[in-house]
Every structure is written in C-alpha cells, then in structure tokens.
C-alpha cells in the first residue's frame, strides 16, 4: 500500500515538475555562459551548479568575484540571497519532518524554489496524504528539475568557452538579475524593499570591500517588513 501511494505521489510530482524545464534550461545555460565568460573553467562552473544548486546565489557569487570582493563578503552576500531557504525548511518541516534521516539529507540538498513552491501548495491541498506520498511527490518534482539544471549549466559552460568577448556579456548578469527581480515585485512592500536596496547600495558604493551592499540589503529587508506591517494594520 505505501509502495503504491509513494509511486502515485512520485509520478504526480514528475508531471508537475516538467513545465519548469522551460525556465530552468535557458537559465542554467545562461549561468554556464556567464560564469565561463567571467573566467571560471568548465569544471568550476559545473561544480557551482552541483554543490550550490541555487541559481540566484550562484549568479551573485560570480558577480562579486568579478568585482574582486573579499572571500568573506562573497560568501555572506550570496548566503544572504539564500536565506529564504531557511524559510522553506521551516515551512516544509510539519510535512516532511518525519522522514528518515537519509531522506531528509536529500530533501535538504534538493530544496530549490520549484520543489518548495509545488510541494508547499500540494501539501496544503492534501493534508491527509501519508508521509510516503508527500516524500514521493517531492522527489518526483526533483527528478526532471535537478538534472536539467546540471546539464544546461554544462552546455552553457562549453558554449561560453567559444563565445567571443565582443558580445557585451558584461551586461548579461545585470539583465538576469533584473529579470529575476521584476516578476517578484508583487506587493508595495517588495517594491519598497527593492528601491531601498538600489538607493542604499548606490549611496554606500564608497564603503570598502563591497560591504555597502550587505548594509543596503539589511536596510531593505527592514523596510520591506515595516511596509508589510503598516499595510496589514491599515486593512
């Protein structure tokens, strides 16, 4: 019985994960191209996607390495981008906290935006699903998503080594970041946080070691949270 439900959840997850390939394959390819154009070799670029497996943080690290920021600042800023993963972990724990330890290891490693987005919605629709089916669904989503990320990164890295420098790829990174941010500006609080981040980062550009960006990010998070509170009180 549990074997059967696990399989059902698994195949449902696979079906729901597949449409994300339209986004992930171009995005992974872009990371491969950008990272190799920035000076990383193919092995380093692929290792980023396998070891870190988080697009926005990988792009952030490459951008800061290009600016020659100190190692600690690169790590702190890229990890700040990934802080949302702690939120994912907290939100999934009521559903997946009962899984075996080796499963929790894999669940944690594969905790990407797509796996969280699909699973958290599904678990709320199906609170009665047995643990085996919930775990099956999660890994079902991962099955198309993770290999697509690795392979498209590799394809992009191989491609990037052959692309001439004159293509203005210095600007690929800013375009990718803006493209990531703009659809995420869902509320006034998100817009306020983004504007604070821009203004503070420009004003603090003189601060050494790219530390101004971390300060700007902290300010922007506080502004976002405060605007959200203020809007809740008003409604």
């Amino acid at each position, binding site marked *: 019985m549990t074997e059967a439900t696990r399989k059902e959840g698994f195949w449902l997850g696979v079906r729901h994960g597949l449409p994300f390939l339209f986004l992930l394959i171009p995005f992974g390819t872009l990371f491969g191209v950008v990272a190799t154009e920035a000076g990383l070799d193919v092995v380093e670029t692929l290792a980023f996607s396998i070891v870190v497996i988080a697009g926005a943080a990988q792009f952030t690290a490459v951008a800061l390495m290009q600016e020659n920021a100190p190692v600690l600042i690169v790590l702190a800023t890229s990890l700040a981008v990934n*802080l949302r993963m702690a939120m994912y972990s*907290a939100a999934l724990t009521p559903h997946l906290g009962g899984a075996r330890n080796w499963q929790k290891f894999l669940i944690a490693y594969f905790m990407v935006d797509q796996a969280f987005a699909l699973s958290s919605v599904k678990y709320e629709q199906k609170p009665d699903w047995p643990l085996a089916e919930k775990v099956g669904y999660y890994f079902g989503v991962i099955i198309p998503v993770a290999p697509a990320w690795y392979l498209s990164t590799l394809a992009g890295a191989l491609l990037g080594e052959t692309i001439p420098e004159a293509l*203005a790829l210095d600007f690929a990174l800013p375009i990718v970041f803006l493209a990531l941010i703009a659809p995420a500006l869902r509320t006034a609080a998100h817009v306020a946080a983004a504007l604070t981040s821009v203004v503070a980062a420009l004003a603090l550009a003189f601060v050494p070691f790219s530390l101004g960006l971390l300060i700007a990010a902290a300010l922007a998070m506080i502004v976002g949270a405060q605007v959200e509170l203020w809007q809740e009180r008003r409604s």
Partner: protein
Amino acid sequence: MITWPAWQIWLIIVGLGAGSFLMRFSFLAFVGDRELPPWVLRHLRYTAVAVLPGLVAPAVLWPAATGGEPDPARLAAAVVTCVAGYFSRNVMVAVICGAGTLYGLMWLLG
C-alpha cells in the same frame, strides 16, 4: 574578469554549498516543528528582493565595460528588462526583451 587563484574559487563553491545546505537542513533536522516567529518570517520574505537590486544598480549606472561612464544602450536595456518582467511575470521574456534592446541599440548607436 575573475583572476582569483583556483583554491579561492573552490573555497567559495564549497563554502556557499555548505552554508546553503545548512540553511535548507536547519529546520528539518534540528529545529523540528517549532514555528519561526512572525517577525523573522516577515524579514526573510524580502531577502532576494533586498540583495539583488542593490547588486545590479552600480553595474547599470556605471558599467565597467565603458570605464564607468553611463551608457544609453545598457540603461535602456535595464529599463526594458524591468518593465517586461514586471508585466509579463516571466523571467525568460524579460531576459529576451532586455538582451534584444541591448544588442539592437548597440548596433544602431554603433
């Protein structure tokens, strides 16, 4: 251009991987079912939108490729990317519109 020694690049890869894994593993493994306080969640919601705009702002206004001089093609591409992304809610549509603007203007303006 990244001119770092290989060991430093690997330090970033391993450090970022380990840190990300710990954040993903944290609640599942150690904290369990206890809920995060609402004020923490409220701040975590804005992490990505707080870091990324500040990261790109200097590169948009003062691109290294033009020696830090504002460049009309790059500025226009940035604006188009934001507008396309905001209205389409689609990352790849925004990338394609932005890149199209950049190359179109670079070709037109020589």
